């Protein structure tokens, strides 16, 4: 890290050292993500990854096809395009394939969210690609990370380093060589993105991915077993609990629970006091006071919602403690 503080674009000796480190980090990321270095762009603002990935593939007359559980950033892109189509999902959270099939001859882009960050639900990526016809594919791996292989056909893909427990502030967009991509933002010169990502963060992201992949094989099965235990014990000990999606079709480490008659924000506070940090998609905690569009699309209870993410290294004892903390907190809140 002490060699990587300089601006790699400058001419000084320190910059040359930084440039070597940058190239090594890029090569490592490319290898571990299954991408080519020359296809990759590093973003210091990962949320822009959706824009570069999707809007760069769109021509003015194109239709943007996306699901109703997609990220709000994707809805924002759709709002500025003339044509868009929204695919519904089954109660399981899976995109309705018959709706996609009807759009298979459409000229446009399919924004394909590989895994939903709010519920952890995975899509049948290859099945959707097979039914996408002429649509170009912008695949969003920002939640799935490297847990899911790249699709057999793609035009752009987007990763966020947080998905492999890397640092916040590093997004990676890959644009397949030969893809009909045009820079959706005003630009100068040949660079496709601002090149403003922090080099220390980029190096951290590359190292985090290397470490992640060393442990991933053994951790996937272990975290899936812990998530199953979490689901079983909470559903057995807390009545009127709604779980979004089936673990068999979800990321192994994310589970979304909704508890009837409970305010999500209060539940979050109680759990934090007990030593656990969880997230929420409840309307009560959302900035715009609207219910979660993801849970609403699936017909899942939107209030009293918490999202539990089990990180690598999480233990069975910690899951048991969390289960007990949730049971106590929900009982208290319902009684108050």
């Amino acid at each position: 890290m002490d060699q990587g503080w300089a601006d790699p674009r400058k001419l000084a000796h320190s910059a040359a050292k930084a440039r070597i480190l940058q190239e090594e980090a890029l090569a490592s990321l490319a290898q571990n993500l299954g991408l080519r270095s020359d296809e990759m762009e590093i973003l210091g603002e990962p949320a822009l990854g959706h824009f570069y990935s999707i809007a760069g593939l769109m021509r003015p007359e194109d239709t943007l096809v996306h699901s109703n559980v997609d990220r709000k950033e994707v809805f924002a892109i759709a709002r500025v395009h003339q044509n868009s189509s929204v695919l519904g999902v089954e109660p399981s959270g899976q995109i309705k394939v018959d709706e996609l099939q009807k759009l298979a001859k459409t000229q446009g882009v399919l924004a394909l969210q590989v895994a939903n960050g709010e519920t952890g639900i995975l899509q049948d990526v290859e099945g959707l690609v097979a039914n996408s016809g002429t649509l170009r594919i912008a695949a969003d791996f920002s939640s799935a990370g490297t847990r899911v292989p790249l699709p057999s056909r793609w035009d752009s893909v987007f990763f966020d380093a947080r998905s492999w427990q890397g640092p916040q502030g590093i997004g990676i967009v890959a644009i397949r060589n030969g893809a009909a991509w045009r820079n959706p933002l005003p630009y100068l010169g040949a660079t496709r993105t601002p090149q403003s990502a922090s080099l220390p963060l980029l190096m951290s992201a590359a190292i985090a991915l290397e470490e992640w992949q060393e442990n991933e094989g053994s951790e996937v099965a272990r975290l899936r077993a812990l998530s199953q235990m979490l689901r079983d014990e909470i559903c057995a000990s807390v009545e009127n609990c709604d779980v979004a999606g089936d673990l068999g079709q979800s990321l192994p480490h994310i589970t979304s629970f909704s508890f009837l008659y409970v305010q999500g924000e209060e539940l979050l506070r109680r759990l934090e006091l007990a030593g656990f940090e969880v997230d929420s998609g409840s309307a009560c905690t959302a900035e715009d006071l609207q219910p979660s569009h993801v849970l609403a699309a699936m017909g899942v209870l939107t209030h009293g919602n918490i999202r539990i993410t089990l990180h690598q290294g999480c233990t069975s004892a910690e899951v048991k403690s969390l289960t007990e903390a949730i049971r106590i907190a929900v009982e208290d809140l319902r009684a108050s």
Partner: protein
Amino acid sequence: MKELNCLGMRCPLPIIAVGREIKNITPGESIHLLSDDPATEIDLKAWARMTGNQIEVKGPNEFLVSKSKVD
């Protein structure tokens, strides 16, 4: 029919109010609910699925909640 006015209440208060009032009626009886919270319709449907009761959307911000089973 019991009237339950939850206009102006934020999520999850309308559903909590329904959960309390449903205990005071018998199977076959209904509650006329008024609620303008954007989560109410979604959460009422989930509530009905989870508790085995029934709901009907009567109009904007207006719902009929029917008790289907003994507590």
